[in-house]
């Protein structure tokens, strides 16, 4: 194997933050190097230095033996270096095909060849194994998070690739697309491409990585071989990696003692709209309900309907926030109504749906609780700061100050700010849509503990997650959806990854039909 990439002594500081200090990393051709580290450790920054997006303060980049200075992403692109960013950048009113080939559109004398583009797009889709997963003509602003991620990945594959880096590519992908991606990575590896893979998901690392390099606080901690040779089983233990990352042993991921759930807080009665069809289930006080399913199963749509953000066409949302023993129908015209009633929703897309990127951590965290922090409409600054500080340290948001613009935080820390906002609000029902997207293991455990604590305090929690171990480890009960229908419910004892997948793939006819109906009967009895 030859050394495809060598980063030596790379340092990068932003005003007030040393994101990288003296990091040296190598990656061989045909190697998958996993890059790990806590949120804010400097992984994305390192990749941005590699892509020419950031200029390092010190350090050298050597590609295939020749030292290179990339002043722009275009230069890195030309040299065969590709970085797939954590946040996909999509052009809204332009087709998927153009989005993928942006900057490299086929043309003759500037005459743009639309037909050729579509043909080439279809061929490439096929070649990379994504055929049928993307519609060439769809516009950028119509794409779901998963589609956007696919576009971003495809974009990086255009042209000759020598080094490719993925920054948490699977955080918005489902199992199926993830499988295709891994197959693709394997093929790239075999064809001698050097691959850097950033993720917080340990199983993924164990599945595809050959070696793990760890960053902590912007410093290089060290590396470990995951397996002896490509294709061999992993020999490294997860705990070793975690210890390198966090600098200590982690306590158990899921600490969840079972206890009696309380009264029914939310009861859905045949909720139907364009994306969800006749969904009925209950959520009780102190209960954590997981909502599982594949991408596009309609979980997000359901959450938005419960939150009053999309209208429901038929069905009822029944609500008993205070535990008065009487379910009342909620008529929600806006999220505002839902919040007033006691529902909170941390949406799945932090950048577009949750954060005010150019406002401070403080403003972002306190946004939903301002009405509790004001006197005669004046915000009580001290109280606000105390509250924000409390949740910022509880969630370990890495920020030099509360006044820092959220846009300068690392991805995982941005996610924590979203969670902090809703924890500060303390709703009666908290809906979390992919709450741990991009969050590192240490903080994940922390978040699980916080969710468990909320439940203990009697808050009903509905967790939407594509991370099956997370759903299983966290939930008291799991509702599985497929194509807008609930295909089954599983108690914690019943839940296994296989069973959930079976239900998620619409197998409810073959799989445990009696169970699904039993729970439904139970629920009907409860009303």
């Amino acid at each position, binding site marked *: 194997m030859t050394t495809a990439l060598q980063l030596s002594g790379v340092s990068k500081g932003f005003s007030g933050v040393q994101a990288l200090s003296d990091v040296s990393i190598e990656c061989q051709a045909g190697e998958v190097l996993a890059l790990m580290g806590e949120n804010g450790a400097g992984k994305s920054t390192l990749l941005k230095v590699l892509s020419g997006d950031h200029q390092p303060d010190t350090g050298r980049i050597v590609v295939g033996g020749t030292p290179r200075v990339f002043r722009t992403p*275009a230069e890195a692109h030309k040299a065969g270096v590709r970085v797939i960013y954590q946040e996909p950048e999509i052009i809204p009113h332009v087709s998927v095909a153009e989005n993928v080939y942006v*900057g490299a559109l086929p043309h003759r004398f500037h005459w743009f060849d639309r037909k050729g583009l579509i043909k080439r797009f279809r061929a490439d889709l096929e070649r990379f194994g994504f055929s049928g*997963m*993307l519609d060439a003509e769809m516009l*950028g602003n119509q794409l779901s998070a998963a589609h956007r991620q696919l576009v971003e990945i495809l974009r990086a594959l255009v042209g000759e690739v020598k080094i490719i880096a993925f920054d948490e590519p699977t955080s918005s992908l489902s199992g199926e697309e993830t499988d295709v991606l891994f197959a693709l990575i394997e093929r790239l590896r075999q064809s001698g491409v050097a691959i850097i893979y950033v993720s917080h998901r340990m199983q993924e690392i164990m599945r595809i990585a050959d070696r793990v390099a760890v960053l902590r606080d912007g410093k290089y901690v060290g590396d470990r071989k995951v397996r002896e040779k490509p294709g061999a089983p992993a020999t490294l233990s997860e705990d070793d990696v975690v210890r390198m990352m966090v600098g200590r042993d982690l306590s158990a991921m899921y600490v969840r003692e079972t206890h009696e759930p309380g009264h029914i807080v939310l009861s859905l009665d045949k909720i139907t709209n364009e994306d969800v069809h006749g969904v009925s289930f209950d959520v009780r006080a102190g209960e954590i309900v997981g909502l599982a399913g594949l991408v596009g199963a309609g979980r997000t749509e359901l959450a938005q309907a419960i939150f009053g953000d999309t209208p429901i066409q038929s069905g009822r949302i029944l609500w008993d926030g205070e535990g008065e023993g009487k379910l009342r129908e909620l008529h929600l015209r806006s999220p505002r109504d839902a919040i007033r009633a006691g529902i909170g929703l941390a949406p799945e897309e932090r950048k577009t749906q949750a954060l005010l990127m150019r406002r401070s951590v403080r403003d972002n965290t306190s946004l939903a609780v301002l009405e509790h922090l004001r006197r005669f409409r004046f915000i009580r600054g001290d109280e606000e700061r105390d509250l924000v500080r409390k949740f910022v340290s509880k969630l370990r948001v890495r920020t030099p100050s509360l006044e820092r613009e959220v846009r300068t935080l690392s991805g995982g820390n941005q996610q924590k700010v979203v969670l902090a906002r809703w924890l500060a609000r303390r709703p009666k029902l908290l809906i979390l849509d992919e709450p741990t997207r991009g969050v590192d293991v240490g903080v994940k455990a922390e978040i699980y503990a916080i969710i468990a604590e909320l439940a203990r305090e009697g808050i009903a929690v509905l967790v939407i997650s594509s991370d099956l171990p997370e759903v299983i480890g966290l939930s008291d009960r799991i509702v599985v959806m497929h194509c807008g229908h609930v295909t089954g419910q599983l108690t914690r004892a019943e839940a296994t990854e296989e069973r959930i997948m079976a239900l998620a793939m619409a197998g409810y006819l073959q799989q445990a039909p009696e169970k699904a109906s039993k729970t439904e009967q139970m629920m009907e009895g409860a009303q």
Partner: protein
Amino acid sequence: MTQSAAEAIHVQDERSLPRRVLDAVGAQNLSLLMALAAVVTIIGVQDPNFFSPSNMLAIGTAVAIAGLLAAVQTVVVILGALDISVGSMTGFTSVICAMVFTATGSASLGVVAALGIGLFCGLINGATIVYGRVNPVIATLATLATFKGLAQLVSGGRAQGYTGGDDFFIFLARGSIAAIPTLIWVLVLIAAALHVLLKYTDIGRNIYAVGGNDVAARLAGIAINKYVVGAYALSGAVAAIAGVLLTARTGSGQPVSGSEGLELESITAAALGGCDLRGGKGAIPSTLLAILLLGVLSNGMTVLGVNPFWQNVAKGALLAIAVIIQQKRSGERAVGLPR
């Protein structure tokens, strides 16, 4: 999943005929056409003279100058910027054209000088924005004042020269080819060229990309700066053509009169034609329809002899109503700011 996507593609190819027609025309254009039809009907019923061919041509020539600027403004808006100095550049180039013509007696020298100045002004705009890092609105507001001042300085604030005796300028102002006035030809040709640029060249597609998401464009290696400077240079050049037309129409170089306020009119047309002022969205034909709608409105009210004060009220109200209808059809939810 795989299936459903394939299905979607399949379904799309089997759109019903009216649906296909609608898609080709575009919802935006359809609304504008409907609004246009409504306005035309209302005015025509009151005064059938409105439909006379000569009046139709009068409308066409009246919108020619504003139409040129609106078309090029569309390009700039799609790129995510705004050129507020177009009117000012038109006045400046109009004066230069007339003065050079008067000094040399050559119409082509006048046109070349205007184009040169226009291009130069556009490059100044682009350079100020890109290399001075000045927000496009402020930069072109600043040059709006600067170019106007320069036009006033070179002309002493007075209209310059007389071009009414030159064949070329007379042909521009009043000639026609195939019974269509030259002015309209100029507008149609330049608008068509810009349309082709936007839709059928990689340059145009890159303009949409830069306006839609500049980070994506930059990461994809598009030389954004070149595009910005280029778009402003284009804007300057087209403004120069508008300036030449202005000189031809008024028979003299006009430093301010006839071009003041064109910036707002061109932006109005672009926005009414469905451009997203944040960039990345828009099309020349819609902008042209919008400018035509504005021209018809203003002509119709003059024809009907509406009191100028009422004209203001009516123009505002009709503008709002046209957009409201347009929007209601899209069935968007009424939350927040519409784009």
